[in-house]
């Protein structure tokens, strides 16, 4: 299931962490004379927007806008009925309906007299949005990820990934000890239950008898020497471990 529990636990990621990350972006925007940075987000590509705002969509698409001189704005494909929930789990206050993304973006640009915007890894935006936002008079420039998005150099990010890794190691290790002789679906079911109860948002489990590479469960019996690969998302932080 994409996704389970989505929360912002401020004891894990204090607000000042997001302030610092966004300030780093704003410095680059200043250097490049850009009014704002656009960060695309959906289920397949949620990492950067989560890093800057704790936004984790469970469906649909969104464009996070980090202005140089004002608070974040979200152009959001989800219904306004869930904006309150989004505000409760992110640093974002200003949420607007996305439509095809171009129109609300151009309106926002007009409202704030923006003429040059950056887009994080612009060529990785979905083609329809890429085309739509480049159809107006606002200049859209690519901002390459290493300039503003450096999760591997962020202590909080690494600490969260370590927490997620420790969770995988403990629960997967526990369940593997008892799993030989079980049907792989049952093993995966037990993992789902335990990881999601521990607060995991998403989970992918592959298993292997040792004769093939890891693959989704098929209803086979797990034999001595089997291995399991777990990709786990905890508070938006993905880790992968094979035991």
């Amino acid at each position: 299931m994409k996704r389970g529990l989505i929360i912002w636990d401020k004891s894990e990621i204090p607000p000042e962490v997001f302030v610092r990350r966004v300030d780093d972006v704003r410095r680059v925007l200043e250097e490049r004379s850009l009014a704002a940075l656009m960060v695309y987000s959906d289920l397949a590509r949620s990492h950067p927007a989560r890093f800057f705002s704790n936004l984790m969509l469970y469906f649909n698409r969104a464009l996070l806008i980090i202005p140089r001189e004002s608070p974040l704005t979200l152009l959001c494909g989800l219904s306004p009925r869930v904006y309150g929930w989004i505000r409760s789990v992110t640093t974002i206050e200003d949420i607007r309906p996305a439509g095809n993304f171009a129109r609300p973006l151009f309106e926002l640009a007009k409202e704030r007299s923006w003429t040059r915007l950056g887009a994080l890894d612009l060529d990785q935006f979905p083609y329809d949005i890429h085309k739509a936002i480049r159809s107006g008079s606002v200049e859209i420039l690519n901002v390459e990820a290493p300039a503003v998005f450096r999760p591997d150099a962020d202590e909080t990010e690494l600490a969260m990934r370590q927490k997620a890794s420790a969770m995988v190691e403990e629960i997967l290790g526990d369940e593997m000890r008892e799993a030989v002789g079980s049907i792989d679906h049952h093993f995966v079911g037990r993992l789902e239950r335990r990881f999601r109860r521990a607060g995991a948002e998403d989970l992918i489990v592959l298993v292997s008898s040792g004769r093939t590479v890891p693959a989704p469960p098929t209803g086979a019996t797990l034999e001595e020497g089997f291995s399991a690969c777990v990709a786990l998302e905890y508070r938006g932080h993905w880790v992968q471990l094979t035991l």
Partner: protein
Amino acid sequence: MAESGWDCLLLYGHSWRKDFFRCLVNFNFFGPYALALLTRSNELSVLLSHPWDQENLAGRVDADIKCVANFAEAIPSKSKTAIAGREFMEARFVDESTVSATAAVEKLRRFKTPAEIQFLEQAAHLADEGYRHFVDTAELGMAEYELVAEVEGFLKTRGAEDNFMLIASGGREVFGMRPPTERRFQKGDSITTELTPQVNGYYAQICRTLVLGEPSEDQRLAFSIFCEAQTAAENFIKPGVNISDLARVQNDVFRREGYGEYTSSKYTRVRGHNLGLYPDENPYVLEDVDDVVNQNMVLIAHPNTYLPLSGYMVFGDTLVVTETGCVRLNQTEKKLFSK
């Protein structure tokens, strides 16, 4: 392809939208991207982005299978190429000379083969079992995410490939569903869920509402409206009827009861949608959607919305369109559940 003048059809998938790829090569890939390439002369090749996928697919499909490190460079640039999924494809993968095949392939996918309907029947059966487990497990003091964990574990144990699920709990203050929170169930709560297990790629859905404790008069009244609206949809569906009318017959029940304003986008999303390799397929059941229902479509009719009587409430079943009407794939009782 011949009618459209396409020499090559690409079906693209990424980790969120695997459906276009899987409608031709029904393989649940692990890597970030996959692409199936079909020529007009019926040659099939598959590009994958993770080596495990290449090994797992080998021998399962009569195609040339490659795993590539640079996906963008590996996509062939042929004349008269159409792409299904072009809109959500990363811009760097799209050659401007290509055209979109998304709508055309989506239309083909609407009408299911007997084999596809069998998978949907299995998924609907799993949805019924999952909902029974949901009702059996929910209890006062339990957190939403704990209940979801129990249901996810249950569905995976029974072989579900995945599950799309939303939930909400509370009373009149609840305006919609979303992923589970840490909120703990209280007496009198309406617990709503949309449960959508996936079997061999295909999703079937069930929507039900559970009240913890004895339902209030308002909750019962609200449910009777939802039940009548959903039943109206079920009775109305047959080949040839328009999707806009399918939405209208549901909304008319709310209008007649004085709740017409709660059929607008302020309070609700859609009155149903198609189901298949994606849990939320076109056409969406809305009064402004002009499309025709046809035999072998599989869709859910769900008049889910907010009502001031009860807060957000949900009720819906997966239906397969037959020659003369429709058949419900879910067997769960059509009632307001309570415990």
